[in-house]
């Protein structure tokens, strides 16, 4: 690899990468921690976190101490106590464990799971195994009347993963508390981006979206909330813990938290530029999501181009070096369009989601705006 290439990798900058809401390139702080873990293999007295944290010798004690420190750090940054935080091996497993564990603990109250119509598919998949009740959303994607009467468990995302709309989690938590229903909040798109949510009984997130490595989900269960991990007993929870990646995830989250107050307005300006300039450059575009930036996360936005197949638009942009994602049906293995766009009444074909991160610049937006009008026009003719 060239020196420039290796520097680019360290920095995490991938030119034309506008899909940070799918995954964020590894933060340099996380990469540094992983390098330290590898280095410690050949220098066993160094703290490195590679050994089995449940064993009773020096390297094991050091791994345990490092893992405990990482847990404390993550807990503080998401507004939890250290003993409330667990690290399932993915965000999807964190969601499944949160909901199945709460439903199991609340089985005498039935199986009704009240959730917004725009939750991540991980939540909908659990709801399909229970008595799911989808609460509708308005045209901005925000829930309307989060009625939890008769629910065993409720689930509401902090912000939507496709359109960025921030949900009224505090109001939902108040309603849940009054009804005695535990509320799960999926904060996957917001941890490390905006202030963590206040009101929750169970919180989930995933490290790869804040610049940590893949393979680290987060599940926090408030002290006193009835919950049991689904599955058979295991002294380690989900098997042998991924200590190196947990350490890297904690370092990345600390870095994201340190950077986000400066980053949020910078990324929001990129988003607003997309929302202003795309409809001016491309006719017949449906801007999706809350028109008010304060009602959205700062780093992502979505629009749909009338009369354009989303799959072919993604391919055309990819040929020009622009990586984005789409909620259009033909771009996924499913035959149905994005349930988020459908629930909002948005145009589902020709859909593009653009999302930014710490290395994104105006040059990335320039590239998108330079190629999008021609790509759309070619597909329409």
């Amino acid at each position, binding site marked *: 690899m060239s020196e420039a290439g290796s520097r680019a990798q360290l920095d995490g900058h991938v030119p034309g990468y506008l899909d940070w809401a799918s995954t964020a390139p590894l933060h340099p702080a996380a990469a540094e921690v992983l390098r330290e873990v590898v280095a410690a293999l050949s220098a066993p007295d160094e703290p490195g976190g590679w050994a089995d944290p449940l064993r009773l010798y020096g390297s094991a004690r050091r791994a345990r101490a490092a893992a405990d420190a990482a847990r404390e750090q993550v807990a503080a940054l998401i507004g939890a106590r250290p003993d409330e935080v667990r690290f399932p091996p993915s965000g999807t497993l964190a969601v499944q464990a949160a909901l199945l564990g709460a439903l199991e603990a609340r089985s005498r109250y039935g199986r009704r799971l009240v959730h917004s119509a725009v939750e991540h598919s991980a939540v909908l998949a659990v709801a399909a195994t229970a008595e799911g009740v989808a609460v509708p959303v308005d045209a901005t994607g925000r829930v309307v009347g989060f009625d939890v009467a008769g629910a065993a468990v409720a689930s509401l995302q902090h912000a939507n993963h496709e359109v960025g709309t921030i949900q009224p989690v505090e109001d939902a938590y108040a309603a849940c508390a009054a009804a005695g229903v535990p509320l799960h909040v999926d904060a996957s798109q917001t941890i490390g981006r905006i202030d963590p949510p206040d009101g929750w009984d169970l919180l989930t997130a995933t490290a790869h979206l804040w610049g940590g490595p893949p393979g680290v989900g987060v599940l926090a269960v408030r002290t006193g909330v009835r919950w049991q991990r689904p599955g058979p007993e295991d002294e380690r929870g989900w098997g042998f813990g991924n200590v190196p990646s947990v350490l890297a995830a904690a370092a990345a989250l600390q870095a994201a938290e340190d950077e986000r107050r400066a980053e949020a307005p910078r990324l929001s300006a990129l988003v607003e530029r997309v929302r202003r300039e795309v409809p001016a450059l491309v006719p*017949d575009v*449906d801007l999706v999501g809350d028109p008010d930036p304060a009602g959205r996360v700062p780093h992502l936005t979505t629009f*749909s181009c*009338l*009369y*354009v*197949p989303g799959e072919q638009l993604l391919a055309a942009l990819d040929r020009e070096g622009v990586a984005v994602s789409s909620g*259009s*049906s*033909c771009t996924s293995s499913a*035959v*149905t*369009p994005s349930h988020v*766009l*459908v629930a909002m*009444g*948005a*145009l*589902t*074909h*020709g859909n593009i989601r653009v999302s930014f991160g710490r290395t994104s610049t105006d040059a990335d937006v320039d590239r998108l705006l330079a190629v999008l009008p021609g790509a759309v026009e070619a597909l329409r003719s």
Partner: protein
Amino acid sequence: MSGVLVLDCRGMRCPLPIVELARHLADVPVGGELEVVATDPAARPDVQAWCRMRGQAYVGESLTVDGVPAYRVRRDS
């Protein structure tokens, strides 16, 4: 059934049913109606979104005799 222009979009994937709808809007007078018969599930939200974007009226959905959804649109402008 007189006055309703039926567009048979069975088997077409979106956005083709919406392209057909736009292409044939001018074939009916203002106040006239079109019906998009489509098997693609994306047609349901997209006919309605098209009406909202284009200032036309979405009338509603029915089923054809062979069980395929038909989405009714009234030309308002």
